[in-house]
């Protein structure tokens, strides 16, 4: 995987621990979360299909039965941070994005 496939979005410290931010990525809104003591990064679509608004980056990060989740700030549905799957309605799966940390920077795959 060569470097030019990744695009820097912000620095890691721009995201408070266990919260998210929204990035504009080639016309799409992507929610990026910095999670847990080992500071894993996750990226999902920012659009909440239930509330029909671009708000997921502003939800609460947590875990449900060991599964890392983000919950919608509007109607509180939980989505798996890894797979994008909705815990309340398995037919709903959010788009996920490849994200990584490089030299203190947050990068999304183009």
């Amino acid at each position: 995987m060569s470097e030019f496939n990744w695009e820097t979005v912000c620095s890691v410290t721009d995201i408070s621990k266990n919260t998210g931010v929204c990035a504009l990525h080639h016309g799409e809104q992507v929610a990026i979360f910095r999670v847990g003591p080992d500071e894993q990064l996750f990226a999902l679509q920012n659009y909440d299909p239930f509330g029909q608004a671009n708000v997921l980056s502003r939800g609460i990060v947590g875990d449900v039965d060991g599964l890392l989740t983000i919950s919608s700030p509007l109607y509180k549905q939980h989505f798996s941070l890894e797979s994008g799957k909705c815990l309340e309605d398995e037919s709903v799966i959010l788009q996920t994005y490849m994200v990584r940390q490089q030299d203190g920077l947050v990068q999304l795959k183009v």
Partner: protein
Amino acid sequence: MSKTTNVQTTNTSNKPLKLIVVGNGMVGHKFIENVVNHPDHEHYQVITFSEEPRLAYDRVQLSAYFSGKTADDLMLTSEDYYDQHGVKYIIKDKVSNIDRAAKTITTESGRVESYDKLILATGSFPFVPPIPGGDAEHCLVYRTIEDLENITASAKESKVGVVIGGGLLGLECAKALHSLNLDSHVVEFAPRLMAVQLDEGGGALLRTKIEELGVHVHTEKNTQSITAGETCRYRMNFADGSHIETDMIVFSAGIRPQDELARQFDIQIGERGGIVIDDNCLTSDKDIYAIGECALWDGKIFGLVAPGYTMAKAAVSHITGGSDQFTGADMSTKLKLMGVDVASIGDAHARTEGAQTYTYINDAEGIYKRLIVSADKSTLLGAVLVGDTDAYGTLLPMMLEKMQLPDAPEVLILPQVEGGGESAFGVNALPDSAQICSCHDVSKGDLIEAIHAGATELAELKSCTKAGSGCGGCSAMVGQVLNAELEKMGVEVNNNLCEHFEYSRQELFDIIRTKEIKTFDELLAQHGSGLGCITCKPAVGSMLATYWNEYVLEDDHIQLQDTNDIFLGNMQKDGTYSVVPRIAAGEISAQGLIDLGNIGVKYDLYTKITGGQRIDFFGAQLHELPLIWEELVQAGFETGHAYGKSLRTVKSCVGSTWCRYGMLDSVSMAVNLEMRYKGLRSPHKLKMGVSGCTRECAEAQSKDFGIIATDKGWNLYVCGNGGMKPRHADLFASDLSDEELIKYIDRIVMFYCRTADRLQRTSVWMDNMEGGLEYLKSVVIEDKLNLCADLEANMQRVIDTYECEWKKTLDNPERLKRFAHFINSDATDDRLAYEADRGQNKARIAQPSVRAAKAKGQEIPALEV
């Protein structure tokens, strides 16, 4: 007792059976309620007559009228309720004639109605002894709301007041005179107060306590005449040659059954009055029933409401073909008289042959308890309790059910020594038939049935069985039955906050306090597991804020904040926010309104006035929030905390500054309260209201804290709620000074913050509290838990460390970075769309059905604008 053959009178014809209820007091109304709630209610038509100018009200709570309750507060029913259930009511018209042959009645105004069954619920009237001079203008009685109005009017022209009669009602009345600022006296014929219910020791202690409160007590005084006085309006001359002077007199020397109507039309009457009834409450006429205080059963009149209710139930049962009967009633009582707890059970005077007694006297704390047991010490016959009536709930069923006493019966009244283990005589020892709530006749078995049917929360159990909703005295017992039964059912009462913490909210609060924990991560590492969730994170964030009051957007706290707290605004359906600046007490200058208006115009915000007397702007985008708040802060506004689980508004009426009727300055008090408690994080939102007089324009009694001004100070109401499940607030204390009022609110608010469940409003908190209002009073007024100093110190810390969260946020450029839709672009959310409605913007969002259909998610659907 006259026995009538039990005629089953079930109505099977199509024409409804016409029931006329004469008298719309508590018992008359209970009868109607029982008919209305009967499965066959459509077979019956009810008409009720009252000579009083209003429908049934709560006479038991009559003295509350003097501490600020209005006639409306005391109402037990309403015209709407009667209309809705097809009950005809005629007030201010007295039934004066019965034609038993034609089965009709006639009223004083000449109205004639026929009946199939006639129910006499005419109650009683106060006995006024035939004393010369006793009919003077300021000689009054104490029974109806009109009597209370007369007493209030007379008190305004008087300095000294005397109550003749030292029984239960007499002492209630003395308390009322005392609260009307009269120099109050009680004159009793017997050698002690409450001579029927109390023995010598109990009566003496009660007397001491009442005298300590400033009411003079005169016993063994037989009033012979009332003549003109020298220093006061009247002089009361006693048989022993002594006298006292007074400006007004209230007779409370017992009641007499109101049996005039029955007497006049030859229905059988007892020798000393009272309409004779059988176990079905039937009189000597097989179509006429008598219930309540006018009825005489087995030679006895029952002057309490609970037996009256049982009679109402028996009469309805007989008419509808049921089997409930009236077979006498226990006259045990427990009450609080002028702040003194008093209870009397069964044979309080040890009149049973061979009865043995045990007495516990604690002069230091003013407690007197006496047990009366059978000669062989096997069963309880009676008890007298003054100063501490906690044992009443255990003793009453022991007496009624003739339960086997422990080997040393005295343990039942000895104080529980710390570490002495739990008393073996808790609710588990009671049989199912034991009556727990005497007001609504609810047995332990009834409660258990309801618990098994799913009422596993105290508030729910109380509302479905009605237990504890009368005088409230049994509320703690109801809680004990619930807990014991849940334990038996093997239901583990799991009040863990969530999967991450095996503690209740209250336990976590204690951990934070005692271990001085300041962050969520610290608490999670030491006492929890995992990462946290939408339940525990905001809850812990709220508790940390209540205790430490640190800035909610501190690095350590950001992740905890709920949707609304995290950007200090209320997120709306489209992801934009509403903005609500504080307008304390709803007081705003014209210039302030202009400034708000300019900001609203500049940012094109939808504008609405809230229910809490402030202004709400809608449609602010994330990046606009700091810009808008910058201007608001410039104009002198601060955050309104509309986004927080915290104090919202203190609603007020204009009060004495402008209103012709205002007793006190309600606006100033409301501003003070709002500025005092603003920003405090609590288990749920808090609302308050301050009204300048009893007209209650601020609707304070529907708030968590309601304050109403009277001519003697502030009355404090607590735990009210509007919203989804309305609850009238309870009167907590009366005639408070500004300082007392604030001291009590400080303590209650903080106690609520520490002990309530997550997202539990004060109304539900109160309904679930074992011991209810009385318990809260004992914690807050008497400091039973020795906690008040700590609660006040906690509150003071919160007040001292208040900062406007928006002002602090604006001062920090790092924090402001978060208020952008994108971390890597200045663009804004292009999905927002609005349409005009009545001249303003409103958010465009699809209907819920469309929303569900589209909730598939892989693709971001374009909005059809």
